[in-house]
């Protein structure tokens, strides 16, 4: 297990290298001259040229990439052309709210989905199962910004139970932090919950029809034992898989959710960087998001081994 884990961790290095080349190349081929953006609209061609030379934009691709990669390895993601702050610092300031949102959204998604998915599978074809199917389809079809505004109008504006928007850091007021995160996490988690719930139901149904479930019944196991001791562990591989794959869309959802709730996270930073054509920041953010995705899927691969003894690479 340990050897496999190490192998898998080492394998993420070439993946991240490819991501780095891709991120750098993508911006290189993007139309628009960053030197012009940095210099501002009133700059003369000479000034632009000076910036171009100073930033190394006149060098060939591989030289630029080499310099960039070298700095990257020492933890230097460059400097924002807009705020003049180091990109690594900008990201570090903003990563907390986004991590809270992603984890909170994921936990809510799992809590809303897995129990209902199991219950629907155990009661296949009955009223609950049919209602479940309808609700998940409906919920999945509603874009998450609509869900967000709906939740705000009910729980914040209507009932006044929760704040409308904003973010309080946990070290300042932990209670306020939790209250403020409820609606954003719900907004982010609900759409994802539908997907996980459908996969849970389908996966449980598949497992429940297998022979070893009949064996468990023949031993005298009751329904709960069959569902939780025998079926769930077998059914959890597709669930874990969809959580890993869906993480990318969760990141996308976080960008929108942060905008709705005015949360100063990486999503907002991304939008700002794009509107300012702040290339170093965009590069840094894409790298961080990619690294997050790679890490989540590394975790998924390691969880597989814990769940299914047949998986050995």
């Amino acid at each position, binding site marked *: 297990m340990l050897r496999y884990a190490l192998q898998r961790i080492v394998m993420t290095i070439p993946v991240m290298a490819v991501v780095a080349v891709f991120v750098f190349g993508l911006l290189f081929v993007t139309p628009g001259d960053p030197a012009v953006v940095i210099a501002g609209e009133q700059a003369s061609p000479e000034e632009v040229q000076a910036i171009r030379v100073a930033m190394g934009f006149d060098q060939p691709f591989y030289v630029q990439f080499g310099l960039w990669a070298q700095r990257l390895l020492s933890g230097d993601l460059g400097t924002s052309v807009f705020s003049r702050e180091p990109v690594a610092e900008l990201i570090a300031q903003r990563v907390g709210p986004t991590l809270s949102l992603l984890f909170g959204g994921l936990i809510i998604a799992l809590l809303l989905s897995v129990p209902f998915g199991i219950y629907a599978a155990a009661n296949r074809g009955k009223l609950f199962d049919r209602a479940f199917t309808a609700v998940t389809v409906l919920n999945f079809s509603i874009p998450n910004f609509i869900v967000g505004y709906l939740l705000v109008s009910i729980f914040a504006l209507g009932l006044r139970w929760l704040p409308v928007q904003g973010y309080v850091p946990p070290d300042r007021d932990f209670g306020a932090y939790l209250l403020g995160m409820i609606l954003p996490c719900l907004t982010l988690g609900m759409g994802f919950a539908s997907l996980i719930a459908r996969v849970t139901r389908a996966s449980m149904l598949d497992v429940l029809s297998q*022979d*070893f479930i009949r*064996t468990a*019944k023949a031993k*005298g*196991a009751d329904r709960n034992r069959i569902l939780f001791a025998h079926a769930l562990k*077998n059914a959890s591989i597709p669930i874990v898989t969809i959580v890993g794959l869906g993480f990318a869309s969760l990141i996308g959802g976080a960008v929108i959710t942060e905008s709705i709730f005015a949360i100063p996270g990486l999503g907002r930073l991304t939008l700002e960087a794009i509107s300012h054509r702040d290339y170093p920041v965009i590069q840094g953010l894409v790298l961080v998001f990619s690294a997050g995705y790679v890490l989540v899927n590394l975790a998924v691969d390691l969880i597989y081994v814990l769940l299914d*003894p*047949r998986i050995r690479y």
Partner: protein
Amino acid sequence: MVLLNVEHLSTIFQTSRGDLRAVNDLSFRVSKGETVAIVGESGSGKSVSAMSIMRLLDESRCRLSGKVELKGRDLLSADEAAMRAIRGNQVGLIFQEPMTALNPVVTVGRQIAEAARLHETMTRRQAAEKAIEMLTRVGIPDPRRRANEYPHQLSGGMRQRVMIAMALICRPELLIADEPTTALDVTVQAQILDLMRSLREQFGSAIILITHDLGVVAEMADRVIIMYAGRKVEEGTAEEIFARPRHPYTKGLLGAVPRLGSSLEGKTGRLVEIEGTVPDPRVATVGCAFAPRCRGAADICRLSQPGLVRTRSDHQVACHFATELVVA
């Protein structure tokens, strides 16, 4: 003493294309310590009978009728909790495919121990020890190590031994074995049959052996029930059935077994097959279900269903011509 008494058991599946009568008016008894083989082709209703007796079918999709008594207690009217207390405890089950019948993500030791813990109060450790003891009894070498392994790490024969250990851990009075050797290699089949015979001596369990393999029947069974299209068509002691089969279907089955020494050069030169296929159970038949495939079928066979007739004290058969000597 009668352990299991099945009377007029019928199992009807409700399908979108109409009712499917999988078991039709089946009656038989199993005495303490006796081995009864239920023999038939695929689709003859033999497995469904066993599942019906243990109430393991999805009863929202099928209807059971008749009577099933285990030591005088009616199982068809028992509630789910009562059935759970019986399953794995008084009645153990072994299934055909030991690969899929074992949970792939739970160690075999725990799967065996679970059967014990479900019915007897004991600690996890006691159950684990008991599981290891059972693994020893079913002839698995190095049981302490094997108990911590998963089904995919064992061979097919060992997996079936694990199934047997699991079924016998609570010393059931009745063991239902549904095609226990079908999925195994021939040499392993012989080992498993040996094991079942020796455990039958040790545990004194009665066995219902469901099979289509007459070789297995000859080695194990005291009594044989032949099923065709959901009905019992013949029943007798194993000796009787093999020596004096009465039903043309039974004769066909026996004729389809290859024998050493029978000349392949002779006038037949090949195995005798039973022509045709098992009838669609959704189509209600008027006469004998076997009539379309029977070479001795007469008009009466197509018009009326033959009832079971006792030809000797230990032999019953459902054929209009059972008492005549030459059929087919």
